[in-house]
């Protein structure tokens, strides 16, 4: 009998570390859909995700958690909607050193409002030690404006421990809401 399937989405700004985060926890080798990045104003990265990243966590009993990483740019927002359908929870990564992290946070919170309103979302802020950039207080404000009190953690997206911290907070939030 085929097992049951659940879905966790990882989204956020370009360069925040979504792909790395999935790689850090996936059981299978990650499937990615990258293309050459022509938008060098947005990021110096050589490539960018244009459809999705896909990883899996296999649970006992044949059940599975599918992990989807979305593209970060607004022009792929149709993918956000498709991927978020029926998701258990959302991990939102924001690159603190990017141009407009707070605006981007607002954009994603609004785009995924169904999940954020159910407190089934966490925010991870990467590249915090780059010097300048908004403070954690600024991030709280963006959430408070929307009546949200989601976890916001400053993390290193390359560290598996930090990705697990985000997932722990996410799962605990979902449990507390039910």
């Amino acid at each position, binding site marked *: 009998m085929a097992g049951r399937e659940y879905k966790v989405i990882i989204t956020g700004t370009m360069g925040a570390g979504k792909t790395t985060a999935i790689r850090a926890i996936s059981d299978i080798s990650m*499937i*990615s*859909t*990258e*293309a*050459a*990045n*022509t*938008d*060098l104003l947005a990021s110096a990265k050589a490539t*960018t995700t*244009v*459809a*999705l990243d896909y990883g899996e966590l296999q649970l006992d009993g044949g059940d599975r958690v599918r992990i989807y990483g979305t*593209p970060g*740019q607004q*022009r*792929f927002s*149709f*993918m956000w909607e498709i991927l978020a359908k029926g998701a258990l929870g959302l991990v939102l990564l924001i690159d603190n050193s990017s141009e407009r992290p707070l605006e981007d946070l607002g954009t994603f919170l609004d785009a995924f409002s169904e999940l954020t309103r159910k407190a089934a979302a966490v925010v991870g802020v990467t590249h915090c030690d780059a010097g300048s950039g908004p403070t954690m207080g600024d991030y709280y404000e963006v959430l408070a404006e929307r009546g949200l009190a989601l976890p916001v953690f400053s993390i290193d997206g390359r560290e598996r421990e930090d990705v697990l911290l985000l997932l722990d907070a996410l799962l605990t939030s979902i449990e507390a809401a039910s």
Partner: protein
Amino acid sequence: MTNMEAIAQTPRWLLSSPASLREHPELPKHCRSALDWFVSQTSGVTAALVATTDGFEVCSIMHRAVSAEKISAMTSSILALGDAVLGEASHNGCENVVIESKSGLVLMLAVRDARQELLLSVVADKNAMLGQVLWAARKCCERICTGVALIDG
């Protein structure tokens, strides 16, 4: 000094092509002429566009109200997914994806330009014949490649 001599003496780095095709001002012109040819050749085409592999529109011909911006991004997603699926099946390089419905079809192709940076997307109605559209689209890609070669020098 005549023009020819001037070019001969200009250092190579000044003549070299931009980091990405998208930045080159002549690109839309070349693509446009290829698209014009394609649309004139093929019956039933309601929209045709050229996009970058990361989903930006380069140029488009729209006979119907279709969002070129959105289709460009979607084409990039679909062809990238095509690559991923083929990779799982141990094949390489997605050439095209055909999306058919009862009222028409969308055909998306990788242009296979020298830099592998361009995609072609075609929207056609019931009057179109897939075989003909595919043939003409491939020829259109060849024309785009020729244009790109001219730019790249």
